């Protein structure tokens, strides 16, 4: 069993690497096509296209997919609840509010929108966290879940107000497009600016992958097995939510990846996070890369990435629900 799972992980990794290379050659130039090596070597414009546009975008897609899937796996395990997704705890709605706020009041330069999105993602997280600490009843998990729901609702009503205030001809369109998520604005500067946070967050989660199994148990059980459950959970929580906030700030709200990929990974690799966490990262990275390649290739105008991931993700979820052997506890 263990050998099989390791082998399968390596296969996935190789497949992902091949996909990355393929994705660099696929795209509109100027019509949907696959670049040939000859053309790439001889055509200066094609080289710049691949190096300056496609490569950073491919890396962003990988980071986006890996972060959302890893964060989904980690949060579902930390909260012992398979229905949680990484935008939870006010992160997604906070980022959305920050972006909309920036577009209306501060300006629509990409870096400014992103900075505000990241800022408000952390405001959402911090607000949820401190609210949860002040709640006087229930266990830690329940309090965080409740605080996350309340803070998300607060920010999403804020987004509603901002949309209502927005200029319908310019700003509203831009807000809507940002809320649907996408990587069309990827540049090297942007990709490199989110890289450190993503790298640190994912490394912490990866190194603690066996520990995650322990932390998915009840507080008393984890404690009796020699852990300090609350301290370790908060470390992991901040690691993956920071990575999520970073990628959301760059890509907008890309739905369903963080919810559905962890389920697929657990379905194939079993619940043990030693395998299901790296599997989720590889599958999630591939899934977003594939969706983003479609998003920029299929139509002359860009399809918002969030629409594709939601469409495919929700479809997969329905298939999984209807298939034999699928079950959720709780």
């Amino acid at each position: 069993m263990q050998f099989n799972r390791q082998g399968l992980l390596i296969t996935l990794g190789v497949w992902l690497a091949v996909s990355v290379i393929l994705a660099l050659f696929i795209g509109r130039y100027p019509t949907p096509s696959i670049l040939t090596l000859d053309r790439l070597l001889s055509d200066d414009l094609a080289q710049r296209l691949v190096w300056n546009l496609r490569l950073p975008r491919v890396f962003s897609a990988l980071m986006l997919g890996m972060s959302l899937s890893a964060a989904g796996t980690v949060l579902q395990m930390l909260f012992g609840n398979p229905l949680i997704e990484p935008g939870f705890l006010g992160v997604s709605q906070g980022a959305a509010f920050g972006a909309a706020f920036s577009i209306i009041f501060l300006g629509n330069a990409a870096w400014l929108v992103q900075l505000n999105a990241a800022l408000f993602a952390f405001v959402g997280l911090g607000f949820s966290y401190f609210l949860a600490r002040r709640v006087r009843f229930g266990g830690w998990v329940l309090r965080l879940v409740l605080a996350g729901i309340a803070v998300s609702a607060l920010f999403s009503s804020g987004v509603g107000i901002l949309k209502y205030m927005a200029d319908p001809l310019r700003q509203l369109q831009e807000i809507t497009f940002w809320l649907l998520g996408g990587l069309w604005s990827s540049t090297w500067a942007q990709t490199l600016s989110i890289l450190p946070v993503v790298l640190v967050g994912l490394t912490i989660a990866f190194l603690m992958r066996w520990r995650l199994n322990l932390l998915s148990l009840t507080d008393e059980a984890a404690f009796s097995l020699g852990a300090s459950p609350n301290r370790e959970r908060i470390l992991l929580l901040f690691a993956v939510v920071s990575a999520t906030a970073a990628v959301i700030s760059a890509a907008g709200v890309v739905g369903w990846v963080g919810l559905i990929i962890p389920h697929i990974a657990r379905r194939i690799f079993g619940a043990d996070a030693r395998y299901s966490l790296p599997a989720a990262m590889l599958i999630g990275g591939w899934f977003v890369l594939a969706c983003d390649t479609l998003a920029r290739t299929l139509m002359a105008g860009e399809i918002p990435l969030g629409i594709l991931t939601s469409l495919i993700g929700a479809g997969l979820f329905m298939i999984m629900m209807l298939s034999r052997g699928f079950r959720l506890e709780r």
Partner: protein
Amino acid sequence: MNETSASLSKYSSSPAESVLSLYDLSFCYQANQPAVMEHFHLNIPRGSITAILGPNGAGKTTLLLLGLGWLRPQQGQVLREGKPLRRFSRREMGQWCALVPQSEHIPFEYSVLEYVLLGRSPYLNPLEMPTEQDCQIALQALAQMGLSQLADRSILSLSGGERQLVLVARALAQQPRLLFLDEPAAHLDLANKERLVQLLRALNQSGITIILTTHEPEVASSLATHLVLVQRGKVLHAGSFQEIFTAENLSELYGLAVEVVEHKGRRLVLWA
């Protein structure tokens, strides 16, 4: 209060000789709620099988969680071999004592082996992966419980009784010196109860001190060397099993007239 001190003096001697001692403990879950435990004294002798017997809601589970260090008393101290619990690191505690909870919510479909392997956590730092040797110890613990054939099954597909035995196996994988069991026999049928009792006796022979809670006098009488009767957060009586397991004491404990009869050297409770 006087009565408690009197029975304490008969029961074991000093905290230094005890594996675990609770000294003048008072505990309540929330500041404005009534105390669950008040001025509670208890010494657990090394090498004993101590049964904590009491009616539902007497504070038995609270007592275990205090002994484990998960709950912190508002007043008084819990001593591990004479030293306060807080002097020990989390890992030192996990290597020293293990808990078998009454039941446990399991959110994901771990295999039985993966689940028992978690018992090795106190021996590994948070970044370490379990080694082949840890795996062997987990398999051994499963074999000890007679569960080897379930190793690759999903834990959620097991019956309540089987899950209970898996929890014991996980505690064994911790290789503890002290084992807490919370109502270990509650979900077990007669054959599994017998298996558990035999196993706990064997563990005790190998030097592990055992503390278990139960609301059934039969479970206590089947293996306990020492007995603590708990009622509304106070020690009613404590001492050796022979001394304490009497009709008079048990009638007082349950507020119900019971008889104790001896059958082939074993004491049984008759009621109604």
